[in-house]
């Protein structure tokens, strides 16, 4: 597969390490009343869709960016690649 890195252009997927669903960005609030339940769901439950999937890839043999790749799990087609940091900020993560 080829991943079009937003900064570096097309790179072979072999340069990357895969992690999983990009929802791992949405780490729950540790002080929430229901933190235990939320962290369990965050840590263990997955949508695992057959189709479009936003997922985290780490450019391990490259610039060490974490990327959010939108990829179809049925066809492996990739429609979008973003810096995970930008996605995280857009989802309201900060410090």
């Amino acid at each position, binding site marked *: 597969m080829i991943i079009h890195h937003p900064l570096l252009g097309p790179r072979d*997927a072999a340069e990357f390490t*895969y*992690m999983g669903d990009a929802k791992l960005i949405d780490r729950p609030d540790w002080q929430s009343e229901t933190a235990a339940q939320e962290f*369990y769901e965050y840590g*263990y*439950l*997955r949508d*695992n869709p*057959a189709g479009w999937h936003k997922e985290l890839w780490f450019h391990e043999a490259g610039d060490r960016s974490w990327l959010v790749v939108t990829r179809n*799990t049925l066809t492996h087609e990739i429609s979008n690649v973003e810096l995970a940091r930008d996605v995280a900020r857009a989802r309201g993560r900060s410090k």
Partner: protein
Amino acid sequence: MRYSGFKVIKEALTGHKGWTPAWRDPEPQAQYDYIIIGGGGHGLAAAYYLAKEFNQKRIAVLEKGWIGGGNVGRNTTIIRSNYLLDGNEPFYEFSLKLWEGLEQDLNYNAMVSQRGILNLIHSDAQRDAFIRRGNAMILNGADAEMLSTEQIKERYPFLNTLDARFPIKGGLAQHRGGTVRHDAVAWGYARGADTRGVDIIQNCEVTGFRIENGKCLGVETSRGFIGANKVGCAVAGSSGRLMAKADMRLPIESHVLQAFVSEGLKPVLPGVITFGAGHFYVSQSDKGGLVFGGDLDGYNSYAQRGNLPTVEDVCEGGMAIFPALGRARLLRMWGGIMDMSMDGSPIIDRTHIDGLYFNGGWCYGGFKATPASGFCFAHLLARDTPHPTATAYRFDRFEKGLMIDEKGMGNQPNLH
């Protein structure tokens, strides 16, 4: 019809006119006591044991395509019970014992061949871990033997012991491990279940569950609604897709695992060998092909096919320990979809929906589990309590922190 050598001879002499279909092709009935979704190894085995061991009636297996078309038809055929953890080892040992009597039980030669499995060791830490594992196996009643480098050299002179980047420092052998003709497992269970009255319905895709007041009443299918008192799902690889129809999110990701077979070769490998410093394991089928595999491609996929980097990675591992392989040819590569669970261990449990039961999360270890998985799922379906060897395979183990993590990789499925 009973199969036997005598029957084969008789048919051969009378023009093979007496052979009948191995299973019927029935129309689905309106209502069953049990519906098993998934005509793979686990689903067919569950139906077989429900009928045979638990004396249940009115059972149907619904299969989207053709039976045995999922992972039971595309795996690398290895059976073993060389597990470490308490939650696993008794279950897999139970499975191995069922394998040992399977063919006589089914009256079907699935070619269960206990040719032995050898896990190679390449570091002291690995040896420590394998000694712990071998001891756990023996303490659970399984067999295990520690082999020295010299013993391995003697038995497998073609392994790279002269120029290895990661020298072989020993190996953990399980002589009762081995291989089984994978398709025949599905067919044998199907035939056995059919003989006991189970309706095996192919080309019948489940499109939804009918759930009212927290109770599952049956399934919507491509051939209409079929009612059931209890519905068991055994569709590993597609678990996420199926259970989403019941609005369930699972502790499972779907990943592609590739496997490979070489052209046919005269016998070179007596048993199964697993490389401990790379991703490669290999056995030789009765037909002569070297059947081998390695690691997951690593990304979520339902595509049943993989990519070149993994092919190369596996073959590199092969060449590293078995340098004569270079002149054998890879004949075919294929991919199967694994239910990769969050701790690398399966789930056989009730769901929160009354009457809906789940069997999945087999990662890439489902084939060897087939008999015990079927048996334990049948036990759960028939009695509503887990089989004693499968008590740990609960949904809530993640919530409670009772993971069964053989590899110690944590909640990242592709690392198991």
